[in-house]
Structures are given as structure tokens and as C-alpha cells.
């Protein structure tokens, strides 16, 4: 088989902009050696990338266009809490005009990644490329090799950042099919605390965008990080994301991944629990319709004893949408007394929607508590009837029940303004008018 369009384009891009650092050179080598996966690849079994890999993308990272700020503005204004640190990127270009920082630098080192390379060279050098080095993930390799832009967030030891960090990534394919590469590095120091939202969106457009994002997360000892990823792009937009988190002892990390629309969305969330007494939460919600395909691949890798991971992914599928859930739990031989739980619950709202759900537990330790479960069902007609007898029309009643189904994921969002923001996006997505 010849090279896909996407791979050829990327190879040409890497020729024109050769990788500089050793990490990037290694990633470029890895990229050359791998192929865009087909459905024969077990990890990509249910996700056909043929269409999105065959387009003639322009690699977007470059100079900011004049219209960029105007495009992003409505998305940015939707979150109107003033006490927040906000960074905005359009097609991988940092937009200072729409960004703001409210937390002092002593408590939070925050900048776009390319600036951090020199401005926070020591912190950057210590962590960049150290975590997201999956040897099989071609998209992550490309992202590392290609100098992707994004956010650098660093919380020094013992600092609690009260104001949440909100990151907006807007893709715009107004000038033709575009490939946006986004790269983030979030470091939360020892006994530090942070709440952060990654928000991915795109303008309504005829052309296609593909966002290839990698986020590296380091959670230091005794640190706490509440991490949200909300993806709500247009149906001509696709998203391939790879998030690798590394947790040290006594730390708390909660990731909530919300996927609401797009053409193809792939979220890889890998958490390495490399310390004792850690807590890791993976909360997921997908609300899909049309032909959207969302594929969540998660990994909880228990490398040390006495830690706890808990995963809850819930999905609502309408139209011809398709969801894939693959949740891996590894409990290594040293990781005795591990508690690891996983649950995936789905509601199919249409006969044409479908779900492929697969738990995967690999346990080498012998004194552990692990469980998993998955369900696929329909909206309860009895509940629907009850709501309708109270005057609520069927559409609103369905939306209420859908929101109720999502509630046990949403109620885990601790910061009020963040929760309201997420609920607002979901309510708009469900066309709730109450």
C-alpha cells in the first residue's frame, strides 16, 4: 500500500522544517517508521481513518491571520468568568489579544509553548517529551516532531492556583482543509493545585480540519489536578488527541473528557500511576448525533501499590453516531493493594446508533480489587411518559433525561464556574430551552 496523503504531506513538512532537538529527531524517525493505522490494527479496529487521512491538508502552524481573533471571540466569550487565566489559539497560533493572565507569575508560569521553550527553559527541558512517548502512536510522534504549538502551564511547588486556567483551541478551515497540531505541557509541582479546561472547537465550515493534539501532564507528589477536556467541533472537523499523565505519590488527578460533536474524534488518555497512595479519576461523557464517531481509549497503568483508579464513561448516541470505548487497566506486579474500577454506560437514542465497548484488564499483582462493567440501553419510555403527562414536550423531556443521565459525570466537576460552563455547552448542544 502506498503512503496515505496525510503521511506524504507530513513527510514533506518535516523535510521543509527539520526537527531540531533529539526528542524531535527521535519522534521524526518513529513517525517515518509507522503507518497511518487501518482497522486491521487492533488499537484502531473501529475507527476508519481513510477519509481523514486522504485529504490535502495545509499544515496550519504559522503566522496568525488577521481574522483569527474575530473567529475565536464568540467561543472565548462563552466563558465569561473574569477570574480565570485564559489562553486562546486559532489553528495552533497563539492569540495574545484574547488571552489574559490573572494569577501572579510566582504562583503560575503560563505561556504559549514556543515562548516557554526559552522563557521557562529549565522547566520546559525537564518535562517536555518525557511522558508522551508511546512508540506505536504515529500521530503523537508527528506532533512531537513537527514543533506543535499550545499551552505551557507550570505550577511551582506548594502553590494553589485558585483561578482556573481556560484554554481555547479554535480550528478554522475557511481557506481549505487544514491540519492543526496542538501541544500542551501541564506541570503541577509537589503539593500544588490546579484546575484547567482544554476547550476544542471549530467554526462551521465546508472544508475539513484535523486537530492532532498531544497533552503531557505531570502531577507531582501530593499535588492535585482537576483536568477537563471539552471537544465540541463542527461536523467537518476531526480530532485525534493523546493525553499522557504521569502521577507521583499521594497525588490526585481527575480527568473529565467531554466529546460532543465532530466527524471523527479519538481520545487517548493514558495515566501512569507511578507512586503510592494516588487517586486517579477518569470521567467521560459523549453526546453524539449525525455521523459522528467518538473513540475513547483509556489506560490506567498501576505501577505502584496502594493506589486507586476509578473510571466512569457515559454516552448518549443519536442518529447514525458510533462510539467506541476501550478501557485498559494494568496492575503491575508491584502494585499490590490496588483498587481499580471501570464502568461504561451507553444509551442509544436511535436504531442506527451503535457502540463498541471493550474493557481490558491485565493484572499481574495478586492482592487487588478490580471491577469493570458496561451497559447499553435505551431511554426509559416510562420516565418519558411521566414527564410528558406534566406538560413537558417530548423533545424537552428527552433532553431532561439525557442531561440526567449525564449528571453523575457532571456532578464530579468541582469548580462551579467550570461546571456551569460545561453544562451550558451541553444544554446548548441538546437544544434545551428551559
Amino acid at each position, binding site marked *: 500500500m502506498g503512503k496515505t496523503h496525510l503521511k506524504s504531506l507530513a513527510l514533506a513538512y518535516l523535510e521543509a522544517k527539520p526537527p531540531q532537538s533529539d526528542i524531535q529527531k527521535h519522534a521524526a524517525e518513529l513517525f517515518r517508521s509507522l503507518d497511518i493505522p487501518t482497522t486491521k490494527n487492533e488499537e484502531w479496529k473501529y475507527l476508519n481513518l481513510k477519509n481523514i487521512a486522504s485529504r490535502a491538508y495545509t499544515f496550519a502552524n504559522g503566522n496568525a491571520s488577521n481574522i483569527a481573533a474575530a473567529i475565536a471571540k464568540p467561543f472565548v466569550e462563552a466563558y465569561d468568568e473574569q477570574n480565570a487565566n485564559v489562553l486562546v489559539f486559532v489553528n495552533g497560533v497563539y492569540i495574545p489579544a484574547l488571552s489574559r493572565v490573572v494569577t501572579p507569575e510566582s504562583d503560575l508560569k503560563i505561556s504559549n509553548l514556543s515562548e516557554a521553550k526559552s522563557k521557562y527553559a529549565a522547566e520546559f527541558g525537564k518535562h517536555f517529551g518525557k511522558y508522551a512517548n508511546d512508540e506505536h502512536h504515529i500521530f503523537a510522534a508527528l506532533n512531537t516532531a513537527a514543533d506543535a504549538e499550545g499551552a505551557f502551564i507550570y505550577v511551582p511547588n506548594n502553590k494553589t492556583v485558585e483561578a482556573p486556567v481556560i484554554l481555547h483551541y479554535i480550528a478554522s478551515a475557511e481557506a481549505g482543509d487544514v491540519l492543526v497540531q496542538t501541544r500542551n505541557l501541564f506541570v503541577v509541582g509537589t503539593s500544588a493545585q490546579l484546575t484547567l479546561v482544554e476547550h476544542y472547537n471549530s467554526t462551521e465550515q465546508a472544508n475539513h480540519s484535523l486537530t492532532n493534539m498531544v497533552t503531557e501532564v505531570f502531577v507531582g507528589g501530593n499535588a492535585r489536578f482537576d483536568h477537563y477536556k471539552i471537544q465540541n467541533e463542527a461536523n467537518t472537523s476531526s480530532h485525534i488527541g493523546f493525553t499522557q499523565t504521569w502521577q507521583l505519590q499521594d497525588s490526585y488527578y481527575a480527568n473529565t473528557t467531554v466529546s460532543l460533536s465532530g466527524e471523527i474524534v479519538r481520545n487517548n488518555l493514558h495515566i501512569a500511576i507511578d507512586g503510592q497512595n494516588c487517586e486517579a479519576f477518569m470521567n467521560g461523557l459523549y453526546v453524539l448525533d449525525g455521523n459522528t464517531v467518538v473513540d475513547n481509549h483509556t489506560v490506567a497503568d498501576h505501577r505502584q501499590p496502594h493506589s486507586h483508579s476509578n473510571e466512569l464513561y457515559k454516552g448518549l448516541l443519536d442518529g447514525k453516531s458510533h462510539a467506541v470505548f476501550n478501557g485498559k487497566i494494568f496492575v503491575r506486579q508491584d502494585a499490590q493493594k490496588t483498587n481499580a474500577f471501570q464502568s461504561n454506560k451507553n444509551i442509544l437514542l436511535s436504531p442506527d446508533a451503535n457502540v463498541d465497548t471493550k474493557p481490558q484488564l491485565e493484572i499481574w499483582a495478586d492482592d487487588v480489587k478490580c471491577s469493570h462493567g458496561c451497559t447499553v440501553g435505551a431511554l426509559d419510555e416510562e420516565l418519558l*411518559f411521566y414527564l410528558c*403527562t406534566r*406538560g*413537558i414536550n417530548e423533545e424537552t423531556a428527552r433532553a431532561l433525561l439525557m442531561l*440526567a443521565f449525564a*449528571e*453523575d459525570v457532571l456532578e464530579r466537576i468541582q469548580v462551579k464556574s467550570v461546571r456551569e460552563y460545561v453544562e451550558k455547552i451541553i444544554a446548548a448542544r441538546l437544544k434545551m430551552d*428551559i
Partner: protein
Amino acid sequence: MLSIKNLQAAIGDKQILKGINLEIKPGEVHAIMGPNGSGKSTLASVLAGREDYEVTGGEVEFNGKNLLELAPEERAGEGLFLAFQYPVEIPGVSNTNFLKAAVNSVRKYRGEEPLDAVHFLKLIKEKMKLVNMDQALLNRSLNEGFSGGEKKRNEIFQMAVLEPKLAILDETDSGLDIDALRIVANGVNTLRNKDNGILVITHYQRLLDYIVPDYVHVLYKGRIVRSGTKELALELEEKGYDWIKAEVETENASSATVNP
């Protein structure tokens, strides 16, 4: 306000209602009694618009409209309310949000402006007193973890908030202790007025000591076989349903001989 003529309904192949006739005028309270399986709850469900039942004949007029053509939410908009025999639990939907959606949906149907937060809360506070509703229950998910009595009280509370023209109480008294029964009955009686109709479906006469009906009907095998005043309920209480069953069987047998 409600006129039921020869109503017939089936579930699957099974004919349950076999020709119901009933007329309820504003200000009247009717009670329907009958043994288990006689079709009482089916009648309530058909009137509220449950899709599991197929109406196979007859007509129902409500406020001059063909009720059977309306969706359940339209029936509610027209002023029909069903207090469920088994109120459902909906985790994740708060009682307050649910009520607000209900009130404003009904108002929208009637061409009225939605209530703002202040007026809504005022309405809720006022109606809560009627049924001794605890504020804590309001903040919880709809009926989730409520006791049987709390669920039934919540039904009456919803009825009070929505102010229906015709309320159907489907075995609202079943399983209630006497205190809960008094609260429920008191709520209903407070809402009783010259413009509203109430249809009480019950298995037990006891409720009718507290909600005194103008008319009592006995439903048996999908038909109303006896109608009378509240004395009929007392007679049923005393003699049970067997004498009515026997009489009806005899009538059927004799009518069969007269009109073979």
C-alpha cells in the same frame, strides 16, 4: 368537561376496556372502584395518553376537544392531570427543575409568559404548605429514594402547582398510612372547587371518607356496572365486590338467554 362514550381499549390482543361511559361536570368528584384487574388503571392510563394501550373504539371529549387525538403533554396543557399509582424515580433531574419545566411548558401551551425565578419560587412555597412538603425533598432528584408516602404526596404537590381542570388520582391512597392519607386528601380537598373535576380511582372505601365523592361507579371486567352516590361505596365496603360480580354474571346470563 369530560365526556367518555363507549370507550374501548386493548393491550396487545387483550381487550381491557369494553365500553366505558362516563360524564364529569365541573365541580364534581367521581370515584371509580372495582376489584383488581377490572380496568381502573387502564382507564387512567388511556385518559393520560399512555401509548401501550390501543384505543379500539369510542370517544373522549375534554373541554370540547377530542382528547384521544392529543399527545400526553397537550392533554396536560388542556388541564388534565394524572397522579400516578406508581410515581417514577428520575435520578439526576431535580424536583425543582422538573417542576419549573412542567409549569412553564403548560404556560407556554396556554400562550402565557414563562414564570421567572421569583414568581416560580413564590408559587412553589405556597403549594408546599398544602401537602406539608419538605424543602429538602424539593432539592433532591425527582422521587429518588422517596418513601411511598412521600411519592404520593409529591404527586398531589405537582397537581397543586399545575392547577389542573381535571385531576385523575390513580390509587393515590394505596399503601398510605392514615397520616399520609389525611395529608393527601386535605391537599385534594383544598383544590376542589366549582370549576374543577376530580376522578378518584381507588380500591378501598377508606379514601372516600376523606374525599367525599358526588358519584361512585363500579368498574368490573372493563365496564361500569353500577353507578350511585357515596352510599354505594359504603355498601361495597360492607359486602365486598362478590355480590356485584354475582349480580353482573346473572344479568349477563339472563340477557344472553333473552337475546341469543
